[in-house]
């Protein structure tokens, strides 16, 4: 029987070796760690992909959101680079393109006719950099005011459509002992939404684009006017104090418990609201878009697009391209966005939306255009100074002119040095 055992072992070894060589491995990195809707969405997406391609195994690498911003930039320059990784469309991806760390997918884009499934505006904004295709836009998020519906109902308030109505709502809330506004600015970035929308609603998207490209000044009267509107909110005490002590999701608890009423934040907050804070959409919270200020300026929508890109040093580009294509497909986008709660970019993808998400989607469809928020559409070193300036302004609103002058001076230096 000895030779039978040896033969059996030999056959098993051969089978194992052959099957091992037939299984391809693709490594994907993203910033949705365990416990959140993003991780569930990725798990479902990957499961569907592996079912379609049983010879490809996907290994997930997850890093916490803030740590991911720094870790991924080091990782993609090494041999340990993931094949595909999530990233933010806009200036940050442009930077990686300029550094030569990304793999262009022009050939794949043409082969799969992806121009037919994504809106041109999204392709231009999120996919194409320096004339080449790089990113598959997976989910689109929108920034607006998430508000405590019960507080609004208690004081008979309606969603404000104009700036005048917004200030009236704030005043009523304040007079009843509720902070009209809360934000969690420990890591600075939530404050950019105020700056962004105030500029978009008063000066318009073309001026904002020029400002972020260094072709307009931070001391321009249009920027000063936007800051004065923001200052008015601070002077009247509408912001809940302590905002620099909380991360963006920590501040949500004050919205839900009714100490504050409105929070200018992206719809990724829905995951925390539903899962961690057990808030019910349409009952505990609702949403309205940033009110109009100048009636002649078209209403635009602001937010990030989450996408995936292939590393230039990806060990398995072939498998990475297959996963990229699946992520671009209606099936992949439907699965991902169903669980993530964001909006698919593929026009044929379908997702179920709750009552709040449906409102957001309708606002997006009616928006004149969609724009990336400040730190994703401004060169990163300038955005860094800008974000610090917004925090300083929140603490010292009377110094807004000096802050803008300093910001302009530093931005000019950085643009001049090519950074």
């Amino acid at each position, binding site marked *: 029987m000895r030779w039978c055992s040896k033969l059996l072992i030999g056959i098993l070894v051969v089978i194992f070796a052959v099957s091992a060589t037939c299984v391809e491995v693709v490594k994907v990195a993203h910033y949705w760690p365990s416990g959140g809707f993003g991780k569930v969405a990725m798990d479902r997406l990957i499961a569907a992909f592996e079912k379609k391609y049983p010879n490809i195994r996907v290994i997930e690498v997850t890093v916490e959101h803030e740590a991911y*911003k*720094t870790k991924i*930039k*080091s990782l*993609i*320059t090494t041999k340990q680079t993931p094949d595909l990784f999530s990233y933010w469309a806009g200036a940050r991806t442009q*930077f*990686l393109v*300029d*550094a*030569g*760390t990304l793999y262009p997918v022009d050939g794949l884009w043409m082969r799969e006719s992806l121009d037919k499934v994504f809106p041109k505006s999204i392709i231009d904004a999120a996919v194409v950099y320096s004339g080449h295709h790089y990113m598959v836009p997976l989910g689109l998020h929108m920034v607006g005011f998430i508000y405590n519906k019960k507080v609004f109902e208690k004081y008979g308030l309606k969603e404000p459509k104009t700036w005048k109505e917004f200030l009236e709502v704030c005043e009523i809330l304040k007079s009843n002992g509720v902070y009209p506004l809360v934000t969690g*600015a*420990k*890591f*600075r970035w939530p404050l950019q939404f105020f700056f962004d929308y105030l500029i978009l609603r008063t000066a318009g998207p073309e001026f904002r684009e020029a400002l972020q490209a260094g072709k307009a000044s931070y001391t321009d009267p249009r920027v000063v006017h936007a800051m004065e509107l923001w200052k008015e909110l601070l002077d009247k005490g509408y912001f809940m*104090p*302590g*905002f*620099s*002590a*909380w991360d963006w999701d920590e501040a949500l608890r*004050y919205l839900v418990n009714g*100490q504050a009423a409105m929070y200018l934040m992206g719809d990724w907050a829905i995951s925390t609201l539903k899962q961690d804070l057990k808030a019910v959409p349409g009952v505990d919270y609702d949403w309205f878009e940033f009110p109009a200020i100048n009636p002649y300026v078209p209403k635009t929508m602001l937010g990030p697009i989450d996408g995936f890109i292939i590393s230039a040093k990806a060990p398995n580009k072939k498998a990475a391209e297959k996963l990229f294509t699946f992520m671009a497909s209606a099936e992949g986008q439907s699965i991902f966005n169903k669980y993530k709660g964001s909006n698919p970019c593929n026009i044929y993808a379908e997702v179920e939306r709750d009552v709040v998400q449906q409102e957001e989607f309708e606002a997006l469809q009616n928006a004149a255009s969609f724009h990336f928020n400040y730190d994703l559409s401004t060169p*990163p*070193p300038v955005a*860094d100074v800008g974000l*610090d*300036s917004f*925090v*300083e302004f929140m*603490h010292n609103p009377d110094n807004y002119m000096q802050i803008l002058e300093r910001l302009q001076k530093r931005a000019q230096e950085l643009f001049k040095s090519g*950074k």
Partner: protein
Amino acid sequence: MCVSKKTIFLFLITPLAVYIFFVISPLIMTFMYSFTDWDGVSTQFSFIGIRNFIELFKNSFFWNALSNNIKWLVMMITIPNLLGLFLASILNENVRGGLIFKVIFYLPTVLSYIVTGLLWSWVFEPNIGALNLFLRSVGLRKMVHAWLAEPSTVLFAIAVAAAWRQTGFSMVLYLAGLKGIPEEIVESARIDGAKGLTLFWKIIFPLLKSSTIVVITFSMIDSFTVFDIIFSMTQGGPYRCSEVLAVYLYKEAFWNYNAGYSCAVAVILFTIVLIITTVYMKFSLKGEET
């Protein structure tokens, strides 16, 4: 048994190789990159001479970070070391339950600075943090602050958290120092009429010079290289009010794609620490020799 120099060298090869690979070579590479415009990601970069250093000395953010380091140095040399000395003096006497107290005061030292930072972030939370809840409950509402959110309190608040962790370490060093003081000297001083504070400052404290040198040297080096507790609590905010050089260079390297400039900051930081500790050690050890 005589050990040959060859044997000694053979045993030292491995730790030396590790030290050269992990400490010396990154030091040399940092120095080299400080003269380039490397963004930290690209494979291409150019030699730009001392431009990074010129930019650094003209940059107000650098001076802001350096001044925060100096404030941090003053706080961390005084708060944990004075507290450590005080606790060591009390616990050196045969206090009932002294061993338990020593363990309790030393325990925070085993926590990492990141864990300490996260823990104290909750203590300082403006609405439901333990500190503000306590102040409100005892009628000290006027002292309630958003400790980590206000420019006037942030650095001090972080220093309190760091001192909470560090005091046990100073206490242990001073305890060791106190145990090393010959009893006869203290007894003679008592017989001569010295007591209380006079005994401590005129007799005991001068004999703790070695412990004090160690404690202050550690504090100085730690103060200039502090990063994790500040980054975990505030990331240097609000608007750079708690930003120190290590946090500043981290942001320049990993947020602003400015690795060459960040290396220049690291070189300056290294030079500052080297000068200060060399001068201090020379001054202190000279005193010891005489």
